[in-house]
């Protein structure tokens, strides 16, 4: 069965510190992996996807098929990064588009 696991409910760091939000997945095929973010009083929105291989707002994420992980990283956290982050998986061959989400991690960046 497909599953996405985010082991940390809350991650609290100081401004300027490195951030790593963990995500592990369980899927036997070729998955597409995403990170979605929900800022306070805003809609849930896409942050980045593994196929784009780009950095968004200083965040990067590398798909590690050997470790079945897709951790989200940023070298220097900013206060505006405080938000709820969700890792999500889509079957690579699926045309239903449905995403399976993890439990979410709240990132708190302290001044």
């Amino acid at each position: 069965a497909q599953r996405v696991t985010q082991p940390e409910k809350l991650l609290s760091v100081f401004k300027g510190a490195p951030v790593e939000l963990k995500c592990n997945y369980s899927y036997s095929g070729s998955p597409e992996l995403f990170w979605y973010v929900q800022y306070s009083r805003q809609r849930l929105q896409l942050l980045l996807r593994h196929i784009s291989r780009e950095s968004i707002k200083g965040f990067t994420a590398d798909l590690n098929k050997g470790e079945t992980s897709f951790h989200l990283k940023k070298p220097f956290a900013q206060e505006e990064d405080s938000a709820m982050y969700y890792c999500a998986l889509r079957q690579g061959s699926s045309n239903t588009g449905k995403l399976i989400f993890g439990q979410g991690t709240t990132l708190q960046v302290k001044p």
Partner: protein
Amino acid sequence: SQTIHQWPATLVQPVGSPLSLECTVEGTSNPNLYWYRQAAGRGLQLLFYSVGIGQISSEVPQNLSASRPQDRQFILSSKKLLLSDSGFYLCAWIEKTGAGELFFGEGSRLTVL
């Protein structure tokens, strides 16, 4: 541009009462539509999805049902609410190919008392 609307934004209902949450999408045709529930400690759980009018797939057994009476309208319903139905419900859409970004509505917070 495409937009997605959900209503009502908040709802307080007694146990045993019916429910109807509505979602509409503008600016696109024949999208795939989804209902998710966001609950503390459980993340985002996919409840239903639809790839076309009248086509509903249920992901988890529950007290809720979904319908898609029109191409860009998706409704979440219940005949009799349970306390456990309380939560934050999110509607979302994606283009027909199923690729690309999932766009979410602003959500509907349901409290069952």
